[in-house]
């Protein structure tokens, strides 16, 4: 099995894996990083969202071979201490219920506020509509994204 080298949450990482194995299962089963969730396996729900070179990507359909040389950020690497504006806002608004989809929601939202400093409700709809929350925490997610963008603009957090 070929070795794949990439950067994971800022650190060099090498894994030996079948090239077709999705990043999701490499993270969860090979590396024991279980914050990234399996929800559908078909890029339909967004629970497995991570960043690759800053872009939100569905890790359940991303073969590990395509990650070689790239920088992957997971929920565990978003901040060391829940200090990312999205995490702060998510706690302020007390968004999660069951919580299972929230890693993916937060990663998608973090990518949104990284490129859009003041997202409108329409921007939020556009960015977030492919992330399913079965508990229906959508109102909280929307409020938290507005708040996270505000925190980021204030520069009070990374």
């Amino acid at each position: 099995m070929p070795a794949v080298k990439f950067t994971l949450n800022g650190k060099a990482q090498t894994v030996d894996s079948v090239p077709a194995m999705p990043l999701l299962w490499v993270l969860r089963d090979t590396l024991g990083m279980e914050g990234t969730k399996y929800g559908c396996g078909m890029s339909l729900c967004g629970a497995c969202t991570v960043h690759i070179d800053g872009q939100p990507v569905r890790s359940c359909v991303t073969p590990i071979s395509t990650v070689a040389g790239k920088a992957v950020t997971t929920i565990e690497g978003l901040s060391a201490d829940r200090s990312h504006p999205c995490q702060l806002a998510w706690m302020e608004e007390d968004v999660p219920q069951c919580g299972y989809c929230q890693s993916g929601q937060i990663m998608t939202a973090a990518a949104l506020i990284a490129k859009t400093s003041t997202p409108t409700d329409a921007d939020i709809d556009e960015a977030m509509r492919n992330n399913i929350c079965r508990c229906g925490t959508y109102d909280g997610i929307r409020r938290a994204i507005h708040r996270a963008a505000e925190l980021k603009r204030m520069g009070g957090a990374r």
Partner: protein
Amino acid sequence: MNTQMNRRGFLRTSTATAGGLLVGFYLPGTSLLAADTAGAASKLNAFVHVGADDLVTLFIHKAEMGQGTVTSLSMLLAEELECSWKNIRTEFPGVSREYGPSQGVVGSGSIRSSWESLRRAGASAREMLVEAAARKWGVDKSSCRAENNTVVNTATNARLSYGSLAEAASKLPVPANVTLKDPQQFRLVGKATKRLDTPSKVDGSAAFGIDVRLPGMLYAVIERCPVFGGKVAGFDATKSKAVPGVKSVLQVPSGVAVVADNTWSAMQGRRVLQVKWDEGPVAAENTLAITRRFAEATRKPGAVGRKEGDAAAALASAARKIEAVYETPYLAHAPMEPLNCTAHVRADSCEVWASTQGQTAARNEAARITGLKPEAVQVYTKYMGGGFGRRARADYIGEAVEVSKAAGAPVKLTWSREDDMQQDWYRPASFSRFAAGLDADGWPVAWTTTIACAPFGGLRDGLARTGVEGVADMAYAIPNILVDYHAEDPGIPVSYWRSVGYSQNTFFTESFLDELAAAGGKDPVELRRRLLAKSPRLLAALELAAGKAGWGKPLPAGHGLGVALSNNIGSNTVQIAEVSVAHGKVRVHRVVCAVDCGHVVNPWGVEQQIQSGIAFGLTAALKGGITIDKGRVQQANFHQYDMLRIDEMPKVEVHIVPSQASPGGIGEASTPGIAPAVCNAIFAATGKRVRRLPIRAEDLA
């Protein structure tokens, strides 16, 4: 906040904490109380542990699937314990009789079953700490008071921390009687409180069942017959075994398991597995045939679910007769965390790690399969990524136990999303035939409903409560009512789905009542007001919702308001939806929800659950259904069984009716009413009456 609980881990932390107070309680039905030092392994099952480090550990004997139980039960304990909210941590204990005969979270019952017992547990622990302080100071207990993790000597103002008192307190007898606070004195209960589990759910550290990882653990998936009830006739695993990472392929009662050193390899091995099935009789079923069969059944009288007066005679003599048929489909639960369970079967013991709504049922299932005594089975409760009733079934627990037993290793079994959708225990499809009579003034005088639906949860004299609840127990005072039921079972597995029978029957009842309002020339709120004259709590919620929603006031062009109410799980809920329809698509703009759920523990939790229940019910109203062809489910993943999205979520306004009544449930309170509120609003906006779910474009044209 919530660390992974395992017995060894707990023993370590407990014994590391010198001494400590551990108070155990038998819940209603038993009467024994028990207390001992934390180090005693036999006394691990309890609600309160106070460490020498001043940290208070609350044992949450229920489970968390998002409904907020960890937080609300902690509030009940902490209220009487007088501990500092910042000093608490929570853990899920194992299964024990101390926690009642059947541990689990079903029927929105956690608060209702814990409201008094957990406050008693907190109060009793507090009294022991106060007694310990009094003895230390050599004063009478009456001059001591508990406050913010300390006991205060009211004569001297001296303070002793809970941590410094814990060991002495643990040696005291458990008080036989404790006085609970007057609700006026509550400082936590009734205050909107943030969830204790949120921090762990924003950094990926919350441990769900699917996140369990054990040394030497193998990963399994199971290929099951696509037709319900089908059996393995034979299989060829040659190709599966050639997939890198696949360790073994094993026949188990529910199908054929592929066991590998990671989940992906197991899934790949399953993909090339060749299984020959004996599909059985359900292979002949399809949705059209099932609907026809149900419709035909409702033409004849069934088992009586409610009888008031003489409905047939009243119908015959009514000034006007209204008739309609309604139908709803099978529905999957689709929790975001696919089903999974990790089991480790050994010769003399079995450990089970599971996100489950039924810990006792999980333990019993593992005991049944292994032949071990229930006491030899340890169940570790993990966070659930949604449950909605699905995780009250222990089928997936049993499967993991079977595979671990056969593989001779710890095994994590994961269901794919396709498994989840195609092998569920579904909300049953239902068909109902309504007739009603109006008097000359347009008021209802007779009401009949005949329902055909697959039974579950017990069948008595031909009647399943789960098939008729929401119609048979409606609060409307109509003098002549007949509700009857046909148990028609096409062999598709059915079970509890958030709000159970109310999930379809409230849609039927509230929609048909709206038809009567229209036929009789009555305003829908006015008709309900009149029929609820003897239901003061529902009536108050109706008035609150109507007032807040601006019922009767002008709306934007093309908009309509619809009202629906439900009284399930001991709570009274009234919803008013504002809807518009354009190009065959329904837009739900706003939902005003008034709820009387008795004494509220956490108003924020109530608001979250009302939002959640509405999203869940709205998904069923606007999105897909499960359909059957050749005995198979035709939907496999979210592209075929869609969920409500962020841009479809209405603005929800929650208004709580203040109440000192016993608490009701909340997790299922708002699911039943949203579909009829929306459909009644569609009627108000367009004049189109929707009589089947999900709402289809052709029903709006």
